[in-house]
């Protein structure tokens, strides 16, 4: 690629009046004495390549796609500029709390435990999240819904997903606040507990459900642990994870997909936990409070399926001596996992809860920690897909105050909710308004 740039600058110019220097040089040349050389200051280091992303590496894959690869209709992404979202989805504490289920392996935090409140965005941000303030106190796994819907669900590219269950009446025009309801609990470790104020009502309403959950939890845990029964796979679609768990579990607004043989991450028993209503989103943001002592946290975005997504993993190293945050990101495209990029950030201290935010705008991804941008990178291979988390080896970190927002250009929210039946249909690529300007491009 012709990327070389001549960056030399004539040092003797003083200003851009080259003519005077040339005249002086000419005069010197005509005289019988040595002339000074015009030394140049090179700027070659500052040359910038064309931002073409990794399409060059993408193309060979398009020629010889892997067995499970799906051709992308629009190989070059239409990159949208970051724009204030016209709609925002907040995944937060349920309005009507589900029954509180004590986590078998991790005791729930007390009601007066320190809470992380990231409801109010930092002032001056281009994003103004239209979300009510909320306060989260603990993380409680809820598996009731997951167990009720054990059916395997694949998320094929282009397959319309079911419409969200959000009642239209609760969503004001252009600003929607979708909160998890009782009938839509989240997947384990991604669900938020009710506030203390509502606790008495919870116990009254959920006493019966609690008993049912107490019965169902052991069953569910047995299902997600290494397979004890050979016929367990029959409960799924015939594929299972390395530990025998179902390949896919739908749970309210979340869907969990586990890698099966041939998928990237199968060796690590990787599972994706995706926020289902945003599976077609193009731009968006995910933010949450990560309990750093609960282990690594993995975030995925632009996730179409198990073979196409971007992933970021945050890992805390040496928390007691020299706390260092390992930021690792990679992509899985057409079922091929890229090389992992890593960046190490020295921390002055270890916060028990670290605010993590990832902005996804077009080809640019920015990672924020405690509202400070710490890393950004670009990639153009995937243009749309869901957001969520990934887990490996069944290790689920504790995250609170999960909030997912989508930009204005997200297809999912591009239409009024009244058009729900077709709101996930694929739109044709936008056509330029000035077709006659093609001549500008030459060719």
């Amino acid at each position: 690629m012709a990327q070389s740039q001549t960056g030399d600058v004539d040092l003797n110019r003083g200003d851009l009046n080259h003519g005077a220097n040339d005249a002086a040089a000419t005069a010197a040349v005509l005289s019988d004495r040595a002339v000074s050389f015009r030394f140049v200051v090179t700027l070659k280091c500052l040359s910038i390549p064309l931002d073409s992303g990794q399409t060059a590496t993408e193309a060979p894959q398009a020629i010889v796609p892997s067995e499970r690869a799906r051709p992308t209709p629009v190989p070059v992404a239409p990159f949208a500029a970051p724009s204030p979202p016209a709609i925002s989805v907040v995944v937060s504490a349920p309005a009507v709390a589900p029954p509180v289920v004590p986590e078998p392996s991790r005791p729930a935090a007390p009601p007066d435990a320190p809470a992380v409140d990231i409801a109010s965005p930092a002032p001056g941000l281009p994003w103004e999240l239209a979300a009510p303030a909320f306060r989260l106190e603990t993380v409680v796994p809820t598996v009731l819904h997951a167990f009720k819907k054990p059916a395997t669900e694949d998320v094929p590219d282009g397959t319309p997903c079911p419409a969200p269950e959000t009642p239209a009446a609760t969503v004001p025009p252009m600003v929607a606040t979708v909160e998890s309801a009782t009938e839509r609990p989240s997947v384990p470790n991604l669900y938020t507990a009710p506030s203390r104020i509502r606790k008495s009502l919870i116990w009254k309403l959920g006493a019966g459900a609690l008993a049912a959950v107490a019965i169902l939890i052991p069953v569910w845990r047995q299902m997600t642990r290494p397979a004890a029964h050979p016929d367990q796979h029959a409960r799924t679609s015939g594929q299972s994870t390395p530990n025998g768990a179902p390949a896919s579990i739908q749970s309210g607004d979340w869907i969990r997909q586990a890698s099966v043989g041939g998928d990237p991450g199968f060796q690590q028993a990787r599972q994706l936990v995706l926020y289902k209503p945003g599976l077609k989103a193009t731009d968006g943001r995910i933010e949450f409070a990560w309990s750093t002592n609960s282990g690594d946290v993995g975030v995925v975005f632009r996730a179409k399926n198990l073979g196409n997504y971007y992933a970021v993993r945050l890992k805390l190293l040496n928390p007691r001596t020299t706390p260092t945050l390992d930021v690792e990101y990679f992509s899985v495209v057409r079922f091929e996992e890229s090389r992992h990029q890593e960046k190490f950030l020295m921390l002055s201290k270890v916060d028990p809860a670290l605010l993590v935010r990832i902005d996804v705008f077009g080809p640019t991804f920015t990672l924020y920690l405690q509202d400070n941008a710490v890393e950004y990178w670009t990639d153009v291979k995937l243009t749309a897909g869901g957001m969520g988390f990934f887990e490996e080896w069944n290790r689920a970190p504790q995250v609170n105050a999960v909030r997912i927002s989508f930009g204005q250009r997200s297809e999912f929210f591009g239409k009024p909710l009244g058009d729900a039946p077709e709101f996930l249909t694929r739109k044709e690529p936008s056509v330029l308004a000035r077709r006659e300007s093609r001549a500008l491009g030459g060719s």
Partner: protein
Amino acid sequence: MSAAAAPGIPNPVEAALALRAAGRLQDALNALGTASEDTSDVYTLRGEIQFALGRVHEAAGSYFTVVASEPENVLAQFNVGVCMQQLSRWSDAALAFQRVLDMDPDRDEARLGLGACLLQLNRPEEALATFDACWSDAVRRRADFGKAVALQFLRRFDESEAAYREMLQSGQQTEDVLTNLVALSAEIHDWDAVQHYASRLLEISPHSVPAMQGLAAVALERGEFAAAVQHCGRIVELAPECMEALHNLRFATGQVMAAIQKRAASQPATKTKNSRTASRPPH
């Protein structure tokens, strides 16, 4: 060969991608011409291929087309800046990069491009502030280099040299750093430094014209015309357009010849004197 020859490729965009991957850039461009819809994707890909073919003007046109219909397309806006920079249209490039930064303040590559354009536009103070604003590790080294150049343009030579030396110690962009150090040292007439940096530069880049210019300048300054002839001759070989080298070669050669003639003129006199002395009969 047309794109249709590629089997199993359903649409022109994919055909163009495949041809481009095979290195057949012109065929890829031709394949794109058959696209039924001129979407921003098509124009973006077209611009990329045109740029790869060295047709920067056309690439700029393609990206302009995208920007015209999608003013907030950051990628196209950025690539407009790169194309303008390639075409040495520094003001246009700076404007494009500034627009990118308005939309995406975190994009350090655009900040780097803007800083380079500001240097070319002889606005080193703004360039210095721009480079200072770079925050990501990905561009850190280049931003440091840009800051050193901006300081050099601001005639803050001590700070600039210190920055360059720091880069030298960390092994960053050694050749470019040495090139600029030669220029900086020549600017302040520190000929010992010029010789030092030029010699180092010549070690890592034996055909470096700035290095030879530095050595030639030192030789001329010190009256070592034979060495000046040697260095200027090399410059003329490598960069025939360097008129200063040509002139200095002639000048230095003249000085050498004059010295030889002077020596030759003085030698017969001495010889004659000596011979006269030798021919005298001993007393």
